[in-house]
């Protein structure tokens, strides 16, 4: 069906379907960051664009890797990142305080961020190698569980609840796609209902408990922790349908909105661009996520399907949790909005995910060609 298009192969095979919407989104994000900086390219917008260009290069490079190599590179990659996580933890202990990143000079790398695509990768590889007959056995549950639990334990130590949840989510979605029995999910869901209150009281830091409480009733402490959610809703709500105009958002310009360039960038956008801007952002995310799932469905091999599906789910987790947070549907967990929030780690992680999906897409196309 692609034969009808008479474009040169490199152009035809370039993943336009995702790069065009992403670039639009990043440009839009840069405009919002320009406004959040009070009408200035620095410090946010220019570095945002630069990071996108670099990360896009990395993603395209990844997409040209042979898929078999990624499959076999999963285990060493997982171990390496796990070691980095341990290194961060040790450095944090030595420096006397919690630390999440390693300073690489040009950027600060959070190993926990790399673990998000990596967990998807290694679980996809595991299930691809697992004999289908064993999908109902304990090995299909216990080994992935262990693979997930190990890095999550270190990330929780940092402590970073948001990233931990993202890793768990990515892993669990891969397990779900892999086809482990449905009853385990139902059983797991039931177990969560029991465990959640226990985790709340014994597992969460006091500030995290406070965030959950605040989420349940933001008006209880309007000047304290509820402040974020209330101000975010005011920003979105006061934007209306068409917004207050570029650079005219009082909530962000006058510093009422906390973190207007990172976690609450959507509120900053919605205040100035209104519902129209919001729908545009949702539409782009819809296109990107739909592309991801399509790639997953079309992939001929199990590894590719699981990898693309899992990476799409990881991106979705970011988008969904962030948007629910800024609209008052989820507690403030500190998860940025992909391609719009200012921040190198999030940009890199999401572009790695995109790169992984593009890799699957390219390998699918290559296999189809060879089949003809």
């Amino acid at each position: 069906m692609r034969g009808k298009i008479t474009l040169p192969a490199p152009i035809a095979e370039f993943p336009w379907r995702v790069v065009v919407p992403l670039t639009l989104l990043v440009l839009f994000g840069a405009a919002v960051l320009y406004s959040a900086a009070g009408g200035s390219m620095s410090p946010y917008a220019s570095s945002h664009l630069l990071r996108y260009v670099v990360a896009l290069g990395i993603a395209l490079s990844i997409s040209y890797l042979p898929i078999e190599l990624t499959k076999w590179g999963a285990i060493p990659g997982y171990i390496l990142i796990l070691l980095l996580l341990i290194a961060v933890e040790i450095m944090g202990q030595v420096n006397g305080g919690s630390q999440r990143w390693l300073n690489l000079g040009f950027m600060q790398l959070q190993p926990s961020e790399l673990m998000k695509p990596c967990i998807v990768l290694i679980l996809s590889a595991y299930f691809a190698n697992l004999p289908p007959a064993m999908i109902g056995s304990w090995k299909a549950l216990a080994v992935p569980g262990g693979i997930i639990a190990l890095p999550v334990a270190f990330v929780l130590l940092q402590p970073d609840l948001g990233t931990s949840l993202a890793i768990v989510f990515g892993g669990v979605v891969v397990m779900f796609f892999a086809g482990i029995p449905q009853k385990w999910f139902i059983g797991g869901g039931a177990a969560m209902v029991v465990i959640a209150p226990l985790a709340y009281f014994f597992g969460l830091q006091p500030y995290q408990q406070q965030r959950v409480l605040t989420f349940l009733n933001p008006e209880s402490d309007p000047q304290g922790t509820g402040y974020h959610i209330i101000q975010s809703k005011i920003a979105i709500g006061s934007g209306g349908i068409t917004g207050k105009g570029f650079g005219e958002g009082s909530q962000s310009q006058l510093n009422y909105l906390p973190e207007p360039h990172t976690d609450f960038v959507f509120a900053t956008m919605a205040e100035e661009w209104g519902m129209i801007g919001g729908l545009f952002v949702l539409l782009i995310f819809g296109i990107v996520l739909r592309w991801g799932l399509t790639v997953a469905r079309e992939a001929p091999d199990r590894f590719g399907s699981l990898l693309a599906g899992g990476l799409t789910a990881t991106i979705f987790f970011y988008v969904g949790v962030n948007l629910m947070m800024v609209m008052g549907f989820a507690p403030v967990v500190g998860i940025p909005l992909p391609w719009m929030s200012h921040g190198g780690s999030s940009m890199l992680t999401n572009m790695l995910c995109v790169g992984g999906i593009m890799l699957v897409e390219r390998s699918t196309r290559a296999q189809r060609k060879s089949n003809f």
Partner: protein
Amino acid sequence: MVQSVTSNALKQTFDRRSFVVGAVQGGIGLLLAARMGYIAVAENERYTLEAESNRVNLSLIPPRRGWILDRNGSPLASNRADFRVDIIPERVTNPEATVGLLSDLLGFSEVEKLDLLERLEGARGFAAVPVANGLDFEKFAAVSVRLPELPGVIPQRGFSRFYPTGPAVGHLVGYVGAPSREEYDAEPQPLLMTPGFKMGKDGLEQYFDLTLRGEPGARRVEVTASGRIVRDLETRDDVQGQPIKLTIDGPLQDYAARRLGLESGSVVVMDCLTGDVLCMASMPSFDPNSFSDGIGRVEYSMLSENERVPLRNKVLQGLYPPGSTVKPTVGMALLGAGVDPDETVFCGGGLQVGSRRFNCWNRRGHGQTNLAKAIYQSCDVYFYAMAQRTGIQPIANACRLYGMQERFDLPVANQFYGTVPDPAWKMEKYGQEWAAFDTVNATIGQGYMLANPLQLAVMAARLATSEKVNPRLIFSNERPSFESMGVSAEYKAYVRQAMSDVVNGPGTAGRARLPIDDVLMAGKTGTAQVVGLNISDGRSGPWRFRDHGLFIFFAPFDNPRYAGAVVIEHGGGSGAAYPVARDVMTFMFDPQKGLDALHALEAGWGGTAQQRLDRQYAAYAQAAGVDLPPAPPPITLARQVDAEARAAADEPEEAATDAVTPREDPTARSDEATT
């Protein structure tokens, strides 16, 4: 191929489940879109309002206070545009550091710093505490620049109360200050919390506070979350308070206050025809300008330690035995009781009543004395003798009729009204019968008899006009008609003539004669003894034992227009009082002549009242250092001053047991005697 079937099954499972995941994602996407629509469209109005209330900060602008004007429309109290600094205590994180830095920037002394810290601690959290006003631009700018280090400090342009003549109007007008906790509790309005708002704390400022206050303006500004003002949006101007026009003649008030000089005393001048109080000066005084930012401890200590009680309004809260100034009134009582003015009494220096002999001040005697001579020579024996005939009651009645013991309808917080003793009063007060010596004392204005200077001025006005002149302080073009006192024209002229002779004839106050050819002033001297002859001669020795000097007057004597009274506390005799009256009345008729006299005197005293007060403050502050008690808040201060005034004016605990022996020289004056 079992394996491949299972593999296909897994592929199917994947397709099925990826559809579920896709549906969930799409569902959440729709949910988010709907949520956004709800917030941004359905609740748009509410959130727009909340965004506005975030962005816009409404602050009240304290209203400009109404002016207090004198009878000619010149201000006794006005407002001066200035730069000021206030503190909102609630927003201060570290009071010591804030006060320390402010004191450096504004050049405060240690004492002022301590005062500020004290006020800050005693303040109600959100009410502004004034730091300084009347700042020059450099200091104002210095504070403004350092604002990030000074949370809670508000520098602003505003208006502060200004009293051009300062101490001269201190007691009359009062002063203003920031509302206290108690005042806010009594009247919980946001206006009282506004930085820079002042309310009246004493005198007319307090009495007419609601009239003078005005309505606050409002200013809408755009602010950041941290409270920094980005720009002004809209400003509604304040409505200035209503002005109050007094009957006071500003220049005269100032002149009288200055003329009192180093003395402790008061001057009241009234318009006989309207009752307008033209002047109501009480000295020494305080500077109301320096009270409006709170009373400093140095100033308070200086004022409260002064035995001449600068905080007391002596016109209304000073009570003095009227001494011989009561004699014209007693004379009116005698005439009313049927005494023939031409009937004479022989004064041989004393009067024998039964076994007692009551002395005249003139031990050598006045010889044959009629009423006129008894007034201008102030003969005590004549009045002793005549009072024996009429009894005390007509005299007491006349005293009351002429204004003693009367409480006037004036806009003042409190006025003491003194005592006119009679047998019923004495019985009630001491449970004792009226004695002959009580009558003797009363006829010469001693003993239990007490009056305030305003009452004495009213007495002068009523003697002058034979009409029941009532004093008034609020200016009105309406000319009141006063009730006649039923004195015949003949007797009225007789007493006027006798009082003129006090000054212009062979009387006791020849030096009170006005240096103006065609205006003759009538008057009556009085010397009120404070202690008995055995303690002090009344002229020298400790200041507090010296006699009070009094003088009541009106002019011109034959067609009275102005009347008044001068009381000099412990002046050593009436000789201290009538020169003041003379100069004040000279100023009234010929201001230049009056001022020339004053300037000569002030050169000797060391400057005007304001200049002397400033110098006294500087010297006191230097000597006192930091170790002083803080000043009480204005309400407490007012009560304290009132209580002390009452204690000073109280009647003796025990009834008097004998007649007062009058001084030999009723016009004596300790320091002028040598000049």
